[in-house]
């Protein structure tokens, strides 16, 4: 193997790579925020008294979890304009990722809901709280705390999934990596740098989430 490493052409593009990773993080943050709100609604629907609502919630989760995210992204970006709904590439990617996230977050929250002890809900009823207040003061805080580790894992997955935005030319890290790859032919270097950036970011997110979990556990004590 006669390969001479030369990182200079990649490091020249450093600002682009950083802006790419920034956009990736932003896309993941927006998507998980929207996905969590949607997922919370679906999670409550999955435990609703109405059987229709329940099966609707499970269908939602099942369909979105079993579809490849790339198919959802392409369907929304290329397919929806045929129905008269043209979104720009960033918006349509955020919609796709949010829908995808909603199914996973619904599962997370559903697990969180199941972990709330029934006795606490009954205690709330016993002191005369309305069902809305029981949710607000008892169920939701316990659920969020239990759901936090799974929430973190999902956020990291979503962040990695933002790389798919490159397929519809959203300028995030993978997009720039491919661009630099074809412009400079520094193949090994560019993919090494891109993977390293992703790994470092994922690791940083893990550290932040771990710190958050620790604070919540302290609060509990």
């Amino acid at each position, binding site marked *: 193997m006669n*390969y001479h490493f030369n990182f200079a052409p990649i490091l020249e593009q450093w600002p682009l790579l950083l802006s790419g990773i920034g956009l990736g993080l932003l896309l993941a943050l927006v998507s998980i925020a929207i996905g969590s709100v949607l997922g919370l609604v679906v999670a409550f629907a999955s435990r609703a008294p109405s059987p229709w609502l329940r099966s609707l919630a499970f269908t939602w989760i099942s369909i979105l979890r*079993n*579809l490849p995210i790339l*198919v959802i992204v392409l369907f929304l970006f290329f397919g929806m304009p045929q129905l008269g709904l043209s979104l720009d590439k960033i918006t349509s990617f955020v919609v796709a990722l949010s829908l995808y996230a909603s199914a996973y977050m619904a599962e997370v929250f559903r697990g969180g809901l199941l972990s709330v002890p029934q006795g606490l809900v009954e205690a709330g009823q016993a002191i005369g709280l309305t069902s809305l207040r029981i949710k607000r003061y008892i169920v939701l805080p316990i659920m969020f705390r239990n759901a936090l580790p799974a929430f973190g894992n999902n956020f990291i997955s979503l962040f990695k999934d933002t790389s798919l935005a490159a397929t519809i030319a959203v300028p995030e890290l993978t997009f720039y*990596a491919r661009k630099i790859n074809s412009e400079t032919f520094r193949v*090994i270097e560019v*993919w090494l740098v891109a993977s390293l950036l992703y*790994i470092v970011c994922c690791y940083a997110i893990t550290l932040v989430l771990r710190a958050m979990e620790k604070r919540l556990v302290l609060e509990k004590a």
Partner: protein
Amino acid sequence: MDWTYFFNEVVNNRDALLHGTAITFAVSLIAILAGTVLGIVIGIAVTYGNKPLRWPARLYIDIIRGTPVLVLVLATFYVSSAVGFNLTAFQAGALALTLFCASHVGEILRGALQSLSRGQIEAGRAIGLTFGGIFRYILFPQALRYALPTWITAAVEMVKASTLLSVIGVAELLLTTQQIISNNFLNMQFYLLAGVIYFLIDFAIEQVGRFIGRRLDQPTRRAV
């Protein structure tokens, strides 16, 4: 919307669609099988290995799991040719998915093995089993029960991740769909069709997994 045109186009392209589906099956199956074998080795190394075995395995899992699959696929494809391995797109893609699957299986197996009590290994040693025997007869059957549901999820993830091979030009179901669309411009209909096929494959895997999971679960349930 002209649905008759769509149905005609589906019938005209049925061979291409079937071929694409077959490629999706093939590449997913290779990745799941090879990835599982490699993943079991890595899982054992990371759980029971001594330091020189454990650290590389740990590093492998963390590096692969920290990288998006698309980057893994692109990197395998471009880097393999740059260093002189002339892999076809299919081979590079299958390799990338195998590496990805192995890291997941390794991590799943580690979690399952660590949930078993140390007393099990000691009991095995006490009756004179080698480590191979302990793993084969004591640890693995129990770990399998814990790991199976997550392993099925990983298998579904592999089928989903196989769509990324369309980016490097493997004519699996998604790229076939895109090629058909470039001829007839039925974007929505054909992406929908691809979605339905992927859903059916993944849903079937999930149901089979549930069925096997219930079967495996029975002895424990009876014992409790």
